[in-house]
């Protein structure tokens, strides 16, 4: 089943009259229950692709289909991202002024009250599953890189998304945490989620089902 499909998408950036073509006419379908890895040199447009898939960047041309249909407008895309997509980044992107638990609760504030017991219970459970039970009330500053990334993953998982998008999730982690994250992502894909991970790290190939290569704005499957 196609979870997210890009159809002839291109994206270019203008800077000082210079046009940088980040993605050239890319088409690809990402399927349910599969762990995709995307590798490629720096500047090849990996982050751009991930954010187009997450509906955070609009492609100049082409379409992005979610579950087979196009979704238009920031309101709908945001809702989709909130309900069906979990995003994970290299720099964790946690709110420094919020505790681990509050950060994880963040995606649930939109529709439900902050104090909704259900949400708090669910967030706690996810944190516990990720081994952060005792870190709930710590601020990001007080957590190690690995712990912070686990909080970020918990946040990505809180609304039980169908698609996980990760942009170099292990870039700031040591070997042990690296492995933990890859294993976790693998498990999520076997649980039926579509997991798309950008990484420079060769170890990902051990876990991924399909390896994609992005080079000079073009996406290829690599055997």
């Amino acid at each position: 089943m196609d979870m997210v499909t890009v159809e002839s998408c291109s994206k270019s950036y203008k800077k000082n009259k210079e046009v940088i073509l980040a993605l050239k006419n890319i088409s690809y379908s990402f399927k349910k229950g599969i762990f995709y890895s995307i590798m490629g040199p720096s500047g090849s447009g990996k982050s751009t692709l991930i954010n187009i898939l997450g509906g955070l960047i609009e492609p100049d041309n082409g379409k992005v289909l979610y579950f087979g249909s196009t979704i238009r407008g920031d309101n709908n895309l945001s809702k989709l991202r909130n309900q069906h997509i979990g995003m994970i980044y290299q720099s964790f992107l946690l709110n420094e002024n919020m505790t681990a638990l509050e950060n994880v609760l963040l995606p649930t504030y939109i529709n439900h009250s902050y104090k909704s017991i259900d949400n708090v219970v669910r967030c706690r459970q996810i944190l516990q599953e990720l081994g952060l039970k005792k870190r709930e009330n710590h601020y990001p500053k007080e957590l190690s890189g690995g712990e912070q990334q686990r909080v970020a993953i918990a946040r990505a998982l809180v609304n039980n998304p169908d698609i996980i998008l990760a942009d170099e999730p292990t870039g700031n982690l040591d070997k042990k945490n690296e492995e933990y994250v890859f294993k976790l992502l693998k498990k999520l894909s076997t649980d039926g989620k579509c997991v798309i991970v950008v990484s420079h790290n060769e170890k990902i190939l051990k876990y991924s089902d399909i390896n994609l290569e992005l080079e000079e704005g073009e996406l290829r499957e690599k055997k």
Partner: protein
Amino acid sequence: MKKSNILSLKNVTMLFLIFLLSTFLLIGITYYFSVSKYYQEYVEKNHGFRILYLLLDDDCDRGKLIENLENSEHVEDAFLEDEYSTFGIINEYQSDEFTGEVLLIGVDPGMQKIIAGSDLNDSEYGMICPSSIYPEIFYDENPYDYRKNIDISSDVGNTLTLKYGGIKEFKLKLLGVFDRSFDYTDPNVCYVTHKTLRYLNDNTYDYDISSNSGIYVLIDDLKNREKLYEYKGVEDVYLVTTIRSDKLQNIIFVLGIFTTIMISFIVVMSYLFTNRQIINNYRNIGILRIVGYSKKILKRRYYISNIKLCIIAITLSIIVANCFLTNFVEMFLYDNPQLSLMNMHTTLNTVIISTVIILMTVLLSTYISLKRIDNLDILEIIND
């Protein structure tokens, strides 16, 4: 973001600025409305404003003109310039120190603050005098020394003998006295209706109709003023009593300038304020976008928090402005007899107008600064 602290320093500064603008607008608009309304009523109520002065040709037959004017349906009364004001002496107050000479003016005292007795009415012969009159010898020395004046308010209701023009005696009732403790400009001015003055004149003088005097006309409505030019010999028509609006005009001008400055200031400040909030929160806003907050939801938060600030500031300003306005007349207008009777309050209209101005100002600048959320660059945040 969620727990935005309404009492942060920036919020308090912003709150204070909006409060200042709001207070200022409330006072300014209330002042403007009260004064204009007051003037309007004042003009409608007082026939003094319907008195016109006709400048005449030298060869004009003044007797005939008065006759013609009096037959006009628009003219209620017409009388020679000489009849308009004359000196008299109030016998009761005549002594070695005080000659008792007062100026009688044949118009309604208008909005002089009557502190005892009643206003003038057309049916009886009576006068309204200042609460105190000045002994001439002291007046010459020091017109502002009010301790040397003679209090006549105890005579309200009594009939006083007036030696009119120094010639003939008349009995006039002292209908009332007006407060003149704040007004030293025209000492010893008493008011009678012009009918009274005419009665006094008719029984005192033989007028030399062929004099150079102009003619005063009491017209039914100022709109009919132009009709007076149709009479032969009339060269020009002037209003005798005009609203003393120079002060009002000045204040409105200053208020206008201040308001413009304040509004521009608030636009800039509230733009900078929201802008800064967004810049400081750029990363966290990016995070919210990533977890699925739409631009609309994010913007709505800024609008709501700015509207909250406005509501708090406006509420405070309504209280402060009303406290201020209650004392406003005494503080700033008391030396203006035309305005000193006024009482000023903020009305629903004033509050609505100033609230609308403030909300528009703040929302406009918020709207402009929220463009930043539209242009949020997610890659910039990720790669930071």
